[in-house]
């Protein structure tokens, strides 16, 4: 272990050096803190630990401490002062330890623990759950619509060789570091698991009574600070609020109770961006993000963004869901599906990066769509589309099924789906993107599938989170408030093919739909892309996630459609269960296997636009392979 020892007192320094040598450490000593700073900066990898005196004439020992901390080096303070305040100051500033002179051999013998501790922490954070989730911070902190996927790890541990540790920007910064308030704060990645724990804690405590301290205790996660929890809680509350505001539709009882899914959805959407990329969705098939915004909170919860492994998608067993025709599809995505009234959603402004708003829209759209069981985890076939008449936005379902379908021809669908998902995601309130990751991804999968919704797809718009409509021949253009839906032809086609009866998608201008979906009518409201599930019979408990109708009426909402372009991955028609009465909400009941395929396909796609990812996320795809 290589130690840098700094002390302006030669006597003490010499003794310290000898002590360290006796402990078999490699020692570099200097009396000048300036020299020490130089050494640290130039050869930051040279040292494992820094021991520094606090009171030094030319520099404050705390400065050295800060620099050491920046480099994630453990810093031990040394001082002749043993009073409480001095020690406290040192610890607050982030020192690993505070030693009082004279220092003894036994004290120095154990300093290696600090190095190991840091390394372990770093390691743990590096391999934190859901590594493939996108950076939560980005997606939800800075709604930029950019779906960068970065793995952010908590940067608390620090070691020179932890090159893969990245600092999260969004989430991390808000999460704030662990201990000291003054040091650079490592970012906390709110992975699905973590978020789930958080939500559990909140639920246990009761939202009103959930204070960060209690939540923190409840969660019992090492390394998590009260600040982290506090900021996460704040976001969660905002999210809930948004959901509540937007959720005025009939929410089916089985909507997801927790916000989890939504969050995850969001994140998933985010993560699904890559899906879209590979799909060749015509840009026109962008789904309005607005659609996505209306997600019923429950939807989110159901969208267990488990992870984004597309490969796992199929295996994803949703805990709660009954046999989901969509198999892996989580219906969590769309609790909203129940509400999917594909009624014109108010124009949501998609936060640049957040799907949040979009999701909400989607939720609203769900016209009694059958919400998939909120608990539906992604991979699970828990899509029990609640009501036959549910025009669930089977976004989720869309994901699974369409994916499969997409394999055939829904290539574009996937894209659209994902892109649409992205859009939908945007509707979601911002929440630690981390949690969203999964969901977002999933939703992304089905942007188009679910959406044949009257949503306005515009080229640059994010594709509507799959309404599971096969491919819409023409996506509704965003500019077209009329909700001209432009569906990817392929998507619709594929979708239609797979659908037994073909969902009925009502769509204003969706030729495809008519063509391909047969009896799918897309009730495109003015600018609503409403997918009606005409095939009530098909409702096989399609995941509500299938609700594709995040499409908001307002073309305006399709701002961030970039991602959605053409991602109208129409879910396989088979997959889409369309409830009889096409309402706004299009519930696509996708057969899980189809969705699985589609999802897989989508997963593979590189996100060219956020749609895919967004959609996928919406659907709570849990397995999104990182782009």
């Amino acid at each position, binding site marked *: 272990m290589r130690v840098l020892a700094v002390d302006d*007192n030669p*006597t*003490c320094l010499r*003794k310290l050096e*000898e002590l360290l040598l*006796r402990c078999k450490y490699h020692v570099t000593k200097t009396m000048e803190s300036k020299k020490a700073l130089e050494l640290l900066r130039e050869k930051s990898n040279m040292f494992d630990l820094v021991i520094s005196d606090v*009171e030094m004439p030319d520099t404050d020992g705390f400065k050295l401490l800060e620099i050491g901390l920046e480099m994630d080096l453990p810093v031990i303070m040394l001082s002749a002062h043993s009073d409480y305040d001095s020690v406290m100051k040192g610890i607050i500033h982030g020192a690993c330890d505070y030693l009082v*002179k*004279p220092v003894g051999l036994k004290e120095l013998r154990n300093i290696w623990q600090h190095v190991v501790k840091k390394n372990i922490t770093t390691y743990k954070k590096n391999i934190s759950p859901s590594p493939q989730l996108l950076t939560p911070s980005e997606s939800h902190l800075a709604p930029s619509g950019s779906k960068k996927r970065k793995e952010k790890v908590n940067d608390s541990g620090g070691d020179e060789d932890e090159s893969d540790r990245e600092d999260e920007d969004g989430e991390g910064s808000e999460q704030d570091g662990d201990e000291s308030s003054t040091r650079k704060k490592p970012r906390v990645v709110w992975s699905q698991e973590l978020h789930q724990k958080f939500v559990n804690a909140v639920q246990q405590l009761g939202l009103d009574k959930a204070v960060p301290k209690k939540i923190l205790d409840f969660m019992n996660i090492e390394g998590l600070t009260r600040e982290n929890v506090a900021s996460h809680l704040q976001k969660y509350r905002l999210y809930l609020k948004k959901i509540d505001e937007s959720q005025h539709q009939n929410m089916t009882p089985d909507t997801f109770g927790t916000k989890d899914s939504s969050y995850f959805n969001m994140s998933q959407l985010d993560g699904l961006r890559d899906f879209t990329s590979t799909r060749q969705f015509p840009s026109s098939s962008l789904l309005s993000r607005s659609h996505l915004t209306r997600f019923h909170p429950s939807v989110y919860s159901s969208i267990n963004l488990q992870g984004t492994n597309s490969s796992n998608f199929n295996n994803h067993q949703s805990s709660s869901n009954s046999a989901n025709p969509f198999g892996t599809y989580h219906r969590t995505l769309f609790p909203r599906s129940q509400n999917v009234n594909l009624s014109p959603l108010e124009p949501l402004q998609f936060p640049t990066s957040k799907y949040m708003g979009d999701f909400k829209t989607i939720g609203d759209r769900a016209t009694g769509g059958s919400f998939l069981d909120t608990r539906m985890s992604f991979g699970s076939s828990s899509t029990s589309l609640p009501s036959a008449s549910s025009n669930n936005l089977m976004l989720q379902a869309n994901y699974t099924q369409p994916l499969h379908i997409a394999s055939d021809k829904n290539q574009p669908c996937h894209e659209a789906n994902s892109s649409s998902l992205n859009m939908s995601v945007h509707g979601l309130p911002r929440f630690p993107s981390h949690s969203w990751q999964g969901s977002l991804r999933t939703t992304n999968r089905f942007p188009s599938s679910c959406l044949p919704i009257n949503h306005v797809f515009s080229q640059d718009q994010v594709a509507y989170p799959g309404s599971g409509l096969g491919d819409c021949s023409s996506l509704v253009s965003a500019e077209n408030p009329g909700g001209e839906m432009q569906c990817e032809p392929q998507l619709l086609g594929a979708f239609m093919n797979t659908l037994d009866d073909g969902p009925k998608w009502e769509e204003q201008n969706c030729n495809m739909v008519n063509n391909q979906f047969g009896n799918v009518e897309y009730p495109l409201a003015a600018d609503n892309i409403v997918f009606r599930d005409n095939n009530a019979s098909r409702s096989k408990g399609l995941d509500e996630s299938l609700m594709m109708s995040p499409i908001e009426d307002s073309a305006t909402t399709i701002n961030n459609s970039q991602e959605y372009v053409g991602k109208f991955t129409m879910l396989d028609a088979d997959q889409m269960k369309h409830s009889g009465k096409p309402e706004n909400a299009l519930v696509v009941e996708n057969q899980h296997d189809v969705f699985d395929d589609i999802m897989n396909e989508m997963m593979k796609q590189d996100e060219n636009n956020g749609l895919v990812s967004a959609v996928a996320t919406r659907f709570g795809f849990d397995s999104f392979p990182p782009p």
Partner: protein
Amino acid sequence: MDTLVAQLQRQLRDYTISLYHQGFLDDQFTELKKLQDECSPDFVAEVVSLFFEDCEKLISNMARALDQTGNVDFKLVGSSVHQLKGSSSSVGAKRVKGLCITFKECCDSQNFGGCVRCLQQVDIEYKSLKAKLQDLFNLEQQIVQAGGRIPQVDI
């Protein structure tokens, strides 16, 4: 009849013990001794001489500061005292360290007279310790020269 070596060794032991008993040295000095081994045979001597050099430097700084009649920078004096306290505690110069504590208090209360007195005492003490340690080292050298081993003195 004791050999010369044995005599010298006994002398060394007695002298060392007395230094401890008189409060010149404390357990830190013992620690220093422990760090001395074949790899660093003169470690104690090295550190101790560093300490004494330190003392001289700091004392002259303090004297200079206190000499600025009417404009004594007690903060400067205080920081020097602090330094001295650190060094003395590291080497185990118990008396010096004790004086530093008093000295610090005088500085904090800006007690000029007290500071001057403390400074004088510190000066006396460190010189006295220096002399005694010098004797000790001489004894050790004699033992070595007489072919004997320096005994481990357990306090």
